């Protein structure tokens, strides 16, 4: 006895109470693109799945950096042979930090503008944020270049290896985020808005703020215990 109970008008509602973000408004099925009409495989993925997805997706990144950071701490702790030479932190690192944090702030302002339907504001802030982010990446490259000039190489000391490794790993993740920011930038002319929110904008800025957080965490790591 298959399909004892079926619904003529599919209405998907969160099964376990109120779901994550984006589930505020009640569903409006039957927009002419439902499964029946589509005749094919109408996949209805609730918007909150994307929010869940990004949050879940950040977990392994956090674990990656946590693993590397705890390796750093452990290695720093066993300096019995005095073979851990602290790396001279270039001043540029503070400028970069400022750039990254302010890019996050700019993206957040952009998102707020969007919510207020202030589209020009959104575009302007988003562009500023993206450019500040690019500035951060350029600044990081500057740091590596500067250190190289000073004769600090990747493999000459564990402390240096860790510094390069952590900053490069972070920069690669930031570049991934940068692709997303540029993608939003490019598509800012025709965005899908629901309740003043746009999925890509939200997702890429969540990711970006997370990169901020990781960066501050790394900065703290480099500062303590020297």
């Amino acid at each position, binding site marked *: *006895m*298959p*399909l*004892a*109970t*079926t*619904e003529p008008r599919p*209405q*998907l*509602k969160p*099964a*376990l109470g109120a779901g*994550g973000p*984006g*589930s505020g*408004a009640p*569903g*409006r099925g039957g*927009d002419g*693109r439902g*499964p029946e009409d*589509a005749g*094919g*495989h*109408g*996949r*209805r*993925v*609730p*918007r*909150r*799945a994307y929010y*869940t*997805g990004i949050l*879940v*997706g950040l*977990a*392994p*990144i956090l674990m*990656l950096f946590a*693993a590397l950071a705890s*390796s750093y701490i*452990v*290695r720093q702790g*066993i300096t019995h*042979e005095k*073979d851990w030479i602290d790396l001279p932190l270039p001043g540029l690192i503070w400028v970069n930090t400022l750039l990254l944090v302010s890019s996050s702030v700019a993206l957040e302002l952009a998102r707020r503008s969007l919510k207020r339907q202030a*589209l*020009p504001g959104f575009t302007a802030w988003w562009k500023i944020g993206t450019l500040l982010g690019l500035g951060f990446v350029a600044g990081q490259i500057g740091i590596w270049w500067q250190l190289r000039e000073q004769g600090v190489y*990747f*493999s*000459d000391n*564990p402390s240096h*290896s860790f510094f390069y*490794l952590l900053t490069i790993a972070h920069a690669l993740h930031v570049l991934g985020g940068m692709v997303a920011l540029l993608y939003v930038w490019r598509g800012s*002319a*025709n965005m*899908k*808005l*629901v309740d003043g929110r746009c999925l890509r904008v939200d997702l890429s800025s969540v990711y970006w703020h997370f990169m901020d957080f990781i960066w501050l965490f790394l900065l703290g790591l480099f500062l303590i215990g020297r």
Partner: protein
Amino acid sequence: MSVAHEVDEEHEVHVHQEPTQFIWKYVFSTDHKVIGKQYYMLAVVAVVIGLTLSLMFRWHLATYDPQHMFLSPDTYLQVLTMHGTILVFMVLTTAPLGGFGNYFLPIQIGAVDMAFPRLNMLSFWLTLLSFITLLAAFFVPGGAPVSGWTGYPPLSAINSTTEGMGWGQTLWVGSIAIFCLASLVGAINFIVTTLDLRARGMTLLRMPLPCWAWFVTAVLALLSFAVLFAGGLLLILDRHLGTSFYIPAGVIFGAKELNHKGGSPLLYQHLFWFFGHPEVYIAILPGMGIVSHILATFSRKPIFGYKAMVYAIIAIGGIGFFVWGHHMFQSGMSPYVAVAFSLLTMTIGVPSAIKTFNWLGTLWMGNITCNSAMLFALGFVSLFVSGGISGIFLGQNAVDIYFHDTYFVVAHFHLIMGVAAMFSIAAGTYFWFPKMYGRFMNESLGKVHFWLTFVGVYSVFIPMHLMGLWGHPRRYSGMENAFLSNPFIPAMHNMVTAAAFVAVLAQLIFICNFFYSMFKGPVAPENPWNCTSLEWITTSPPKFDNFGGVEPVVNHDPYEYSVPGASKDYIMQTDPPEAAPAHAVGHD
């Protein structure tokens, strides 16, 4: 600038047709069912390779003669390393989760597909890439690595440590790194699908147990593979960029001191086992879920203590992150930490004991049919008990002093991880084959397969405990010394090898049965086992969108068998609420 307001506020709607071209339908498919089968087939190929390798080194041990070795010592270790790696990663991590999980998680929770089908496809293709990379290690100069599936540095970190540590080892690490990415992508999909795509009425505590198991497994994968990735990354850097994360100062190879700055070999072990212990549960948890499902179905009884089972799965997953040090009692790690790890390890025995109790409780006062699926599920319970028992020895730090790195450990993890997980895969296959291919597998062949395997594996691994008690170290390719040439040891090796051939060759019966039944098996109806979960309300095999365009609504708990007063002995999860008379027995 214009902002198009999306009509549907809550859903992103992707409309796609079932692809018609072969390549999009069967190769680069985003359909979870096709991806599930792809994963399964990958595991079948991997299991054939991995088991063939094991026969090679078993033959070597049985016919051991220092003058005429079947495998040279390097080849022995290469074969051993690849056997372990292929089976742990490409079989035990792919088939139960990537295979069955992909195919049945969405259906069992009433979804049309995974949340992110394209990521799902990516995850499979990355896994395949990782598998090919791993196999390539056989064919590079120097051959496959010899450092075991655990790949401890410095052995694995320096090319000159021993033969076979060149590109083979690099490919090995590369393969593992790709595998990590694949698993992470897959895990995100599983978690989001379970959290956000459940059908109406399918609350978390109405999910069938396999879904819970897949979900918790995905969480384990999500948190542990990233750490393994970090471990592999540092290993590659040490190998190729001259860093010293793992290589301590003053190590000497080829009679000269290497220029390294003082890393810590133990660091790798921590990173590896932080992943490694959860990994063993990644291999077994889906099996526990599948077996629970099958036991309930063929005992025609609700799962005994459904909630306890769910909490036990969560507890095993949770505690599993805090016991990795039990692999390192003798490693030189702080002995105080070892005490803590040891105590935590013993607590993980508790949820394991609960599961066993509840499986027995499920059989109790049931109406048990012993078909192939059920036999393998029962075999799983027996194996899980046997393997868990040796865990009680190994988990005690003092006792592990003697057993660590002996055949006792080999016996333990093969019984509980290797063989038990394989049993759950076989059980799942006999159980779900009718749904996946619309045909039954041959029952008689299934029973022959079961008996040869069951007797075979026990005859392989019980004697290994004895060898471990006798103090036989693992990963030894030869035995020419006074102690091991005690007649007891070669006799054991011969017996184990004979049993191993029986157990492995029995799998050929299974594979033949599988492919034959795919085309020639008797046609299966929609719900041949009178099972209650959602995969059985749809056609066999399910249509492209699983439920033929209708969304199932769930009204019942997953294991409502033999409800007093009901018209039949099972109530489908989607049956109308009235299908169940006022519950005679309350819930736990």
